[in-house]
């Protein structure tokens, strides 16, 4: 069963993940909307100059900027934690292919791998911190227009390495608690260059979609939120597709029709 079919078979999971992301983002932005609406209290923008209105409002209510930063930071933290918990479930579901496995068997398999996933994610976090510190010295000497692309390439590589490590833990071929599992994730980039390239391409596509959607949202002054949500849905699917590519190598024969 190829990766695209694995990912497509898990469309309900993709939908649930996306809905979860939308709910968290909407909930986070609700506070911002409420804050501004409460402050406006019957008043309305006197013209269509959104940038000036934002400047005037944030000057009068500087706490709004703090609230925005906290919203984004909370989203990042929440997304990070939730995804660590969900990752083995998604990987197990993708590994099973079609038809969907029983909930009970998924649950027991998840319980068996969650500890390892948390551990290997923590090791990867440490490796990323080391990478950032190491790269900062190098990138600081390069022109920003070049440094940003190198940093992006490293982010993609780190993402793919984590995928490989998680797959290894979920499939039981490696122990999550061992730092070697994390290092093997990076080594897999060299061992499976074509697979890694495909995964990196999908990860780049994810970024392209969400950053493109966000840029459009900013440029239009918030008028394209629906498009942004659609981009997020597509990016989420690409993410699941990327995991399916990672798992394809280690997956057992599918129980469903090929």
């Amino acid at each position: 069963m190829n990766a695209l079919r694995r990912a497509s078979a898990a469309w309900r999971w993709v939908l649930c993940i996306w809905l979860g992301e939308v709910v968290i983002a909407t909930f986070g932005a609700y506070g911002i909307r409420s804050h501004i609406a409460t402050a406006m209290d019957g008043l309305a923008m006197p013209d269509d100059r959104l940038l000036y209105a934002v400047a005037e409002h944030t000057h009068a209510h500087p706490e709004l900027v703090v609230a925005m930063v906290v919203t984004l930071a909370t989203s990042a933290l929440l997304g990070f934690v939730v995804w660590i918990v969900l990752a083995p479930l998604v990987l197990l579901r993708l590994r099973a292919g079609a038809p969907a496995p029983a909930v009970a068997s998924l649950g027991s398999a998840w319980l068996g791998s969650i500890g390892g996933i948390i551990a290997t994610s923590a090791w990867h976090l440490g490796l990323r911190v080391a990478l950032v510190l190491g790269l900062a010295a190098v990138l600081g000497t390069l022109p920003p227009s070049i440094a940003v692309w190198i940093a992006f390439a490293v982010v993609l590589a780190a993402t793919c390495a984590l995928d490989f490590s998680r797959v290894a833990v979920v499939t039981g071929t490696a122990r999550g608690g061992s730092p070697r599992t994390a290092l093997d994730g990076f080594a897999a980039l060299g061992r499976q260059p074509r697979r890694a390239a495909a995964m990196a391409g999908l990860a780049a596509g994810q970024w392209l979609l969400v950053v493109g959607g966000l840029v459009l949202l900013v440029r239009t002054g918030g008028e394209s939120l629906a498009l942004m949500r659609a981009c997020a849905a597509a990016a989420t699917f690409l993410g699941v597709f990327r995991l399916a590519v990672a798992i394809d190598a280690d997956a057992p024969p599918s129980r469903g029709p090929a």
Partner: protein
Amino acid sequence: MIAARLVVASTLGSATLAIACSPPIPTPPPVVAEPTAALRPPDVVGPIPVASRVLDWSIQARLDEAAHRIDGHARVRWRNTSRVAVTRMPFHLYMNAFRAEDTAWMRESRGSHRGHEARDRGAWGYIDVTKLARRRDLGAGREGDVVALAWHEAEDPSLMEVVLDEPVAPGASIDLEIDFVTKLPEVFARTGRAERFHMVAQWYPKPGVLHDDGTWRAHVFTYHSEFYADFGDYEVELDVPGDMLVGATGIQTDVVEDADRKRVTYRAEMVHDFAWAADPGFLEYTAQHDGIKIRQLVLPELAATMGAHEQAQIAALDSMQPRFGSYPWTTITIIHPPESAGGAGGMEYPTLFTTSPVYQPGVPARIIGLRERVSGVFTTVHEFGHQYFQGILASDEHAQPWVDEGMNTFSNALVLEDRHGADAWLVRVGDLSLHTSDFVRMSQFDTASLQIIDGDADAFSPVIGGYGSTVYRKTVGVMMTLRNLVGAAAFDAALRDYAIAWRFRHPTGAELEAALRDGLGDTVVVATSSATDAATADVKLDVAEFLEQGLRTTRIIDFRVHSIVNRRAQGHAGWHRNEAGVLVGGDPPLAEDAEGAPGSEAVVVLHRAGDFVVPVEVEIVFDDDTVTHRMWSGRQRTQTLQFDRSVARVRLDPAGHLWLEHRRLDNHRVAPGAYDDGLSQPVGDVVEGAALAVLVGVGP
């Protein structure tokens, strides 16, 4: 491996992109011939007041590049155009501001100017007068011998006083000969040198200005004080290293090359300063517009945006000449200081100014659609504008900096208006814009009530801050608000009359205000912005009162719609006496929806929250979407408006005429009920989108 490949691919892609995006250096076009006269024809220049010709200079200067030193000899003829005899003359020695840490300028600036720092010992600069004498005039063009004169520096070395050996009678003149040595500082504040770039400004002794009543105007050079001087003609010979390209005030009349040196001679007429720049790496770009030679001197790394500066220069000429009279000189030279001499950027001298680089957006800025008109293009418009506001209208920058800096920045807004339409945008991000008025308003967020505009330069301490936002941008707010209220045509005509009347003279703020009052009248009926609603005849603007509040008080303009109340109109239910004096009736009040009920009425309360009294337009939108506009004089603190039908929304200053009002979000109120405030939704949507991007980024 794959990571390495990706890194290499990305790097190459990025490098290719960077190369592809690097704007090419334009090939300098053939050099436009140097004009033969410093001034344009007399019918273009207009009348030059005889009394304005006060100083004639002849200067020989030799640059010793290795020693960063200029040896100068100046011969100056000064005319006493006042009503009293003169026995002493104050001179400015501006370069001494950089002589030591305890000069007035350095004490105030603490060695920093517009973000540029005096870095080391090389930052020091000074001017030392080594000889000063009067040359006797024997009449009939014969020169007599010289008489040495005594001079002494004032407590602050930026001033010196010369004691004359005999009085100079009203109408008489005196010839002075001055030898001086100028040590150029490492440039961090307008003047000096960086590597081989030299910006030589305020480099020779300059007399103060003698007013008609016999009082001298000469000031200690302080952080904000800038300059003030009399008009005259200059003949200057500059002896510089042979590989240097020179740009200077006026026209180049001669070049003599001698071994590894060259002597370049410049002539300027009816100017009040002489500055020059030199660098061996300069590329020269010239163009001609309306008979004026535009000359740009730039190092190759900044040459890519020559076209943008040239277009800005042309736009400024095309706007300012019709508005303020012809540009009188035949040349304008634009110097582009290199990055290492950024402190020299953005400064005006007669027929020459320094500009700053045009912002080159990176890939991320281009992706989000960032465009701007606030960097180098605006600098060029602003510094050229000074050719009028201080170059021709030579006000005292120390006594009233707003008369040149503020009025010039106002004229820059008009250049943008003429080029791009009213209230042109200065920054754009995609579909969103920040306009000229937005920048003026934002500058008032923290400083609107800090200091008055009409103060001398020393009233604006760097410790307090707010000099730029008050003197430059608040003046724009005052003038543009007045222009919007009285009508652009009337205001522009009054300002043009001022510019023509005070050409080649020393106008003060009072004279500018008088010209505006004369041109506009003492009071002006203020019209609404609506074509269908007639002007409210009883709402008048008192021009003098407006200028007094705007220039000499810290009052702010701030209006708000306090409330909108829609309610049932009251009818006639109840007991009333009839003609016979008998109480009749007693009917109960009618329900709102009952047949024959009197319907709705609305009460709107407006509030002048600021102390600045000024008329304001009110826009009322009724429930049936009909709209009416009216003017409120703004004299009372509150104004109650009543209507016989429900009001949906009320907006104050709907056309955005009051550029001085920076609190605008309370200008528009909607009747109670569900509504869209216009702000919470788009901001919330952008935050939600960003949160979504973050979640997807850290997610699968």
